């Protein structure tokens, strides 16, 4: 893969995961081969427990694949992590309870051995709707607020690659819409390559340039749907026919995947 300036694309080749267990082991991710374009936002949609989180963790290099490989640009995930080129938002916000919200966001900078310009953290906290909570400890926040703090932590190091595992799972509906509107603008302006896991069809179509629909475990790609809506999404896009058609295609693919089980997953249409 040619080295090019700017954010790297991701290339997964035969990526698979099987957890050892009695009776031959538990296959969580069937061999997965896909390219993700640099600077694009891709949603991974699938039923709960289908292996999409495992897939994301393998791309981050936090889980060792049973087979296959991941290349980010021309580097391995470990190399990208070593220079703090990626950031992961985990399903559990994983905030350290003894640090304030600001301290938790700053932790990413410390771990990445970086400094941010003055006011960066405050700006990010405002973006995720946590202005006024910089000095609060996670224990005093709601689940959704914690998740938003974790998103701010992901963004503060300005990673080239952003991996978000159900980033809005616990966020209330109103805030979720606001975030779905604001966050893509930020990472598009930065040219970040983004992968996010969700089980919300609407969220996937609203945020992503491309939706990968996965089957129940073991995860296989049932459909690979490009989202042909304008960027940035105009106000009220959810009410348009184009949006509804896309959402319908994703839902249909989900249903098809569920009906066929994890065994005979279709390739992209």
């Amino acid at each position, binding site marked *: 893969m040619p080295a090019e300036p700017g954010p790297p694309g991701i290339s997964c080749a035969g990526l698979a995961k099987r957890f050892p267990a009695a009776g031959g082991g538990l296959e969580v991710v069937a061999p997965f081969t896909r390219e993700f374009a640099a600077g694009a936002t891709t949603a991974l949609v699938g039923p709960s427990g289908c292996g999409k989180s495992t897939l994301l963790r393998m791309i981050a290099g*936090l889980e060792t694949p049973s087979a296959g490989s991941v290349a980010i640009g021309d580097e391995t995930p*470990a190399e990208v992590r070593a220079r703090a080129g990626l950031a992961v938002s985990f399903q559990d916000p994983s905030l350290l309870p003894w640090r304030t919200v600001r301290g938790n966001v700053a932790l990413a900078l410390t771990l990445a051995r970086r400094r941010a310009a003055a006011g960066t953290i405050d700006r990010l906290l405002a973006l995720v709707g946590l202005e006024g909570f910089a000095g609060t400890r996670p224990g005093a926040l709601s689940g959704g607020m914690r998740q938003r703090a974790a998103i701010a932590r992901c963004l503060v190091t300005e990673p080239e690659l952003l991996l978000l595992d159900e980033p809005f799972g616990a966020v209330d509906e109103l805030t979720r819409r606001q975030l779905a509107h604001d966050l893509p603008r930020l990472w598009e302006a930065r040219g970040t390559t983004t992968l996010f896991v969700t089980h919300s069809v609407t969220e996937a179509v609203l945020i992503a340039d491309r939706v990968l629909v996965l089957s129940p475990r073991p995860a296989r790609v049932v459909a690979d749907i490009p989202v042909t809506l304008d960027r940035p999404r105009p106000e009220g896009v959810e009410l348009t026919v184009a949006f509804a058609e896309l959402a319908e295609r994703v839902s249909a693919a989900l249903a098809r995947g569920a009906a066929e089980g994890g065994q005979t997953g279709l390739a992209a249409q």
Partner: protein
Amino acid sequence: MSAAEAAAAPARRALPGAPLAGVAGLLVVWEALARLPGAEVLLAGPMAVALWLGENGALMARALAVTGAEAAAGFALGNLAAVALALCAVAWPRAERLIAALALLVFCLPLVATGPILRVLYGPGPGPQVTLAALAVYYTTFVPLLVGLRAAPAAWFDVVASYGRGRWAEILHVRLFAAAPYLVAGLQIAAPAAFLGAMVGEFTGAERGMGVLTIRALRALDVEATWALATVAALVSIAVYAAIGAAGRRLLREPPPVLLAPPGAGGGARPGAALGQAALAGGVALALWWGAMEAFGLNAFFAKRPGDVWAFLVTDPGAAAHRAELFGALADTLALAVPGYLAGLAAGAALAVALTLAPGAAAVAMPVAVALRAVPIVTTAPLVVLLMGRGAAGTIALVAVMIFFPVFVAALHGLARAPGQVLDVFESYAAGPLRRLVHAQLPAMLPAFFAAARMSLPAAILAVTVVEWLATGRGVGALMAISASLSDYAMLWSAVVVVALATVAGHALVAAAEARVLARYAGEQRR
């Protein structure tokens, strides 16, 4: 609040006045007992103790300063060693089992015999007392700290890993902070243990300090002085215990965990692997022992090497006689230690269970028990001798009391740990308190109970040997005392080795029982 929740949270619901009421009750009972006819030869009440302290304030203050300084130095050194060991174990997980095994072995050294050996090694001065204080504290800090360093959720380490950072960043940014409440809990228990270690060091031959005064008072049958010394030791320990707890609460904003479940004792390991581990630990211990003696060029007359002990017990012409003497004494000691230990375990668990069935009582009893756990019980050994005479009953009672408090506190916390939702399920079926106890609370108690049982095993040996040393003139404690006064260092070292190995074996026995019981009744709680 449902009844189930009320039962689950006795400690948190304690009224602010409850500890005061408990203390006042204790004082009244104590004074009343002291005023019973004929009690004055055994028991000095709080009034008499206060009077004695008023008259001998300067003497007591000097002794307290000496012993306090030794305890403080031992506290600092022992805890530093504990932190260093725990960090090593976490930084090099392959070495963890070896480090834990060596730490346990050193913890099982009989302090009473280690004292005189340290005295000849160090020469005059506070060295032995400080070392014994350090030895008495480091394990009870090491174990909870190790638990705390490993207790963080895996997701926190994923955050560290996602920025490409490794083990040291984990320790620096996550583990150290996550372990802080456990460290505070360990330090709290260490405070009375340090005082105890310093006083045992003074029992075995010091020039100054409260231990020396205690021995003098005991020889003179000075009841007031004996009780006054024990009272001061207890009060100082409780005060430091409380101060560390208060400082911890201010720093941490969350209460330190009271349940100090030590790492599972080789649970799940194959017997062969466990044996190999034990052999490795034994080999390293022998090498360290021999190496230390050689490195400091210590005189072979009093600084015995492994080979000397082997010769004394196995290859010498008189080895059979030596063995007979040592193992005979050990049998005498175990005949007291085992019943006392079992009685302490049973009494601690039984009272905790009884109090759980009457939740109001637990709220009053818990603060008192937590405070009394801070009493360095061995310093009250002379009192028990005064009260119960030099026979078997007195020694057994002391061991039982020594074991009772940590087991009681651990069991009470364990019982309170049964999850509220589980108890609500029982409530919804209108299950009575007894069924709730048997099916939900006892299984929740078992891990804490066994943890306390294992940790307090060396304390049982310490209690017996101290009483034997000071008073009864029988058993391995007396043998150690006689050997020390006769400068029979081969016997003294052999006694240290044999008692330490016996304690480790007892520990392994309890751990094996624990593994079987927990596998059956509390499988999901094993680590």
